[in-house]
């Protein structure tokens, strides 16, 4: 067999698959065969690189050339020019959104330069379907070290030393959690991985599971050894079919290799893993509801204590961690707690993966050291706001989090600073909003989400979120009354205090944080019946100004024939007929139509 001289890595994560990576892959297969290059070039499917904006992504080694938005039509040219003749196809290279400069190499683009990838290290660089490639990237070394050189007590102690805090949102110290469960008496304990990622705009767990599934298995096995468990569950939502497929494959491979199952690495440690597919209820991300769902019951939370560490799955002591938390574990035990704790701030150690979405140029995943500022994430890594618009706010932490305005962009990103700013780390979804976003509408969007996902068990959440949503809807429709803001605040505080689980306790956060930083927008809606961002359709109207030359384009584009006027004369809009779609304003070449 001849040496493989080049590797073509194609991302087939969910994002790139959606933009057509599978067709690109098939085309490469055909073209390489046609040019008789298949033997000397290896074609590798990888997980998500986190740069979903530029998908489908293709990276070619040894040069490390980074091609973005590759279409099947481009493949023949890449094979002919790059693979055969060694000439880079420059039109497909990545361009920095702010400078329009072409960057040929993967490591050099600004999106990756400021990142520090620990959890995501292998994502996009190894074949997730190959246990050998994971082992080649130092995989299962942490587990080997733990099983062969450490006692379970030492593992828990080491974990406490890292200062790692739960990456699922709450930020509870992972080492403490492990210690509580390890100290719980009983022969049977469970390790559970919470992969029920449900925040709108969050996809870091999915990318980890798709891109590097063995890392999660290794992290869970280390945890099982530490707490004295021999059985674990991965609770993954059924909407992640690729993640589930790759996890199943990874579990089968690890069992075959003797890295899961009985007598792992020749020791007396046994650990088996199951996958439980969730039906996509947001509340099942709450640990007690999640365990109820695994048991086959309706996914509803129950009061704590007793905590899962004492009485968890099937009433046995259980330890639940999030996907990203487990993804950090193999690295920690390979390099040691001290090395890990060098990264981050005093109270928030390590790195955090953020999912960048919304009105941002580089949509994707960014793993950064704790303590970096929000400005660096959004403007340096994220490439700034789309279309050169002005930044308004960033929503962090999903429906449980809050909005951070421009003036707080320089706050360091860590658990405590975010809480102080009225938001929370949450799972790490970052939704970036520009000047054309209405903050009342944003609060309504998130509340609509939590309201429909409320399980209905406790009254504050079931009734409270519904009433708050009604009030917000009234405000956006121009029916807000004086006193509504105060009523919202009072209700929000009662729900926070009274709800049973974190879903209800955090549901008012989007309202409270937008009220804190954008109260003037609420007031404009209520008192002036005006939506400053021009989003709430009931509060806006369109007018044709004197700039109109009577070209008639607006008249043509109006779907409800609300515009009238003679050619070359000024046109007018009938407000009775107008449905406020905005099509006329977009179309007018003379900018004669204004909102107001």
């Amino acid at each position, binding site marked *: *067999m*001849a*040496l*493989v*001289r*080049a*590797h073509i*890595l194609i991302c087939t994560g969910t994002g790139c698959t959606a933009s057509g990576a599978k067709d690109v892959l098939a085309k490469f297969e055909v073209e390489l065969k046609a040019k008789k290059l298949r033997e*000397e070039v*290896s074609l590798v499917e990888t997980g998500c690189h986190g740069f979903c904006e530029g998908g489908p992504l293709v990276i070619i*080694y*040894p*040069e*490390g050339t980074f091609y973005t938005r590759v279409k099947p039509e481009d493949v023949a040219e890449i094979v002919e020019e790059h693979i*055969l*003749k*060694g*000439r880079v196809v420059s039109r497909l290279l990545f361009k920095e959104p702010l400078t329009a400069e072409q960057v040929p190499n993967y490591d050099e683009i600004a999106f990756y330069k400021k990142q520090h990838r620990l959890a995501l290290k292998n994502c996009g*660089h*190894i074949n997730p379907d190959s246990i*050998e*490639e994971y*082992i*080649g990237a*130092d*995989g*299962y*070394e942490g587990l*080997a070290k733990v099983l*062969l050189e450490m006692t379970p007590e030492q593992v828990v102690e080491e974990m406490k030393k890292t200062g790692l805090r739960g990456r699922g949102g709450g930020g509870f110290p992972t080492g403490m959690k492990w210690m509580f469960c390890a100290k719980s008496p009983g022969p049977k304990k469970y390790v559970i991985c919470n992969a029920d990622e449900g925040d709108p705009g969050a996809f870091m767990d999915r990318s980890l599971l798709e891109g590097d599934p063995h890392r999660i298995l290794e992290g869970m096995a280390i945890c099982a050894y530490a707490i004295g468990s021999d059985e674990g569950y991965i609770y993954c939502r059924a909407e992640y079919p690729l993640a589930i497929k790759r996890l199943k494959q990874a579990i089968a491979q690890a069992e*075959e*290799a*003797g*890295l899961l199952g009985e007598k792992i*690495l*020749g020791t007396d440690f046994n650990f088996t893993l199951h996958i439980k597919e969730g039906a996509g209820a947001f509340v099942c991300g709450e640990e007690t509801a999640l365990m109820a769902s695994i048991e086959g019951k309706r996914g509803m939370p129950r009061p704590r204590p007793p905590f899962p560490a004492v009485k968890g799955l099937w009433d046995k002591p259980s330890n639940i961690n999030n996907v990203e938390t487990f993804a950090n574990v193999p690295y920690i035990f390979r390099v040691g707690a001290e090395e890990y704790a060098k990264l981050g701030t005093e109270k928030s150690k390590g790195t955090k993966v953020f999912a960048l979405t919304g009105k941002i140029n580089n949509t994707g995943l960014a793993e950064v050291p704790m303590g970096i500022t929000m400005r660096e994430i959004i403007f340096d890594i994220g490439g700034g706001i789309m279309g050169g618009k002005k930044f308004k706010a960033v929503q962090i932490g999903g429906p449980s989090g809050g909005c951070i305005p421009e003036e707080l962009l320089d706050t360091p990103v860590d658990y405590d600073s975010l809480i102080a700013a009225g938001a929370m780390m949450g799972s790490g979804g970052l939704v970036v909003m520009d000047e054309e976003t209405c903050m009342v509408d944003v609060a309504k969007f998130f509340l609509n989400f939590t309201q429909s996902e409320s399980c209905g068990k406790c009254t504050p959440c079931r009734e409270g979120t519904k009433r708050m949503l009604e009030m917000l809807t009234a405000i956006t429709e121009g029916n807000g009354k004086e006193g509504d803001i105060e009523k919202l605040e009072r209700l929000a505080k009662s729900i926070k205090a009274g709800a049973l689980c974190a879903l209800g306790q955090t549901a008012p956060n989007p309202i409270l944080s937008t009220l804190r930083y954008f109260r003037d927008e609420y007031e404009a809606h209520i008192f002036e019946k005006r939506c400053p961002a021009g989003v709430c359709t009931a509060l806006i109207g369109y007018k044709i100004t004197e700039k109109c030359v009577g070209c008639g384009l607006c008249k043509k584009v109006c779907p409800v024939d609300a515009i009238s006027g003679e050619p070359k004369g000024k046109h007018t809009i009938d407000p009775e007929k107008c449905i406020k779609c905005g099509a006329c304003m977009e179309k007018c070449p003379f900018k004669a139509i204004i909102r107001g």
Partner: protein
Amino acid sequence: MTIKSLEDLRKIKAESQIQTKARKGNETQVIIGMGTCGIAAGAREVLAAVLEELAKRNLNNVSVLQTGCIGMCQKEPLMDIVRPGEDRVTYGPVYPADVPRIIADHLVNGNIVEDLVVAKIPNKE
């Protein structure tokens, strides 16, 4: 494949790293002129011979790269050898039969195959 000990794990790791070695840039390089002229003169066969020879000798820390026409079409197929810290040497015309000798003498042992040399490009450092 069953992994029973740390040794087993390390063995698989080493094997796997060989497979993915080409994903890291190497300082030792074989560069083949693959312009239209090069391909017409037989550069494809030279490239195949290089890959075969490298595999035979288990040389995994070498990057095999291509380059376009450098304007010396009469000397194609051209092949460059780059060793870290040394001058870059261009050979030509190189035929598949010459490949084992260049790789053994120059790439592995550092002795330039003078009778096939076209040019030497001084090392910048």
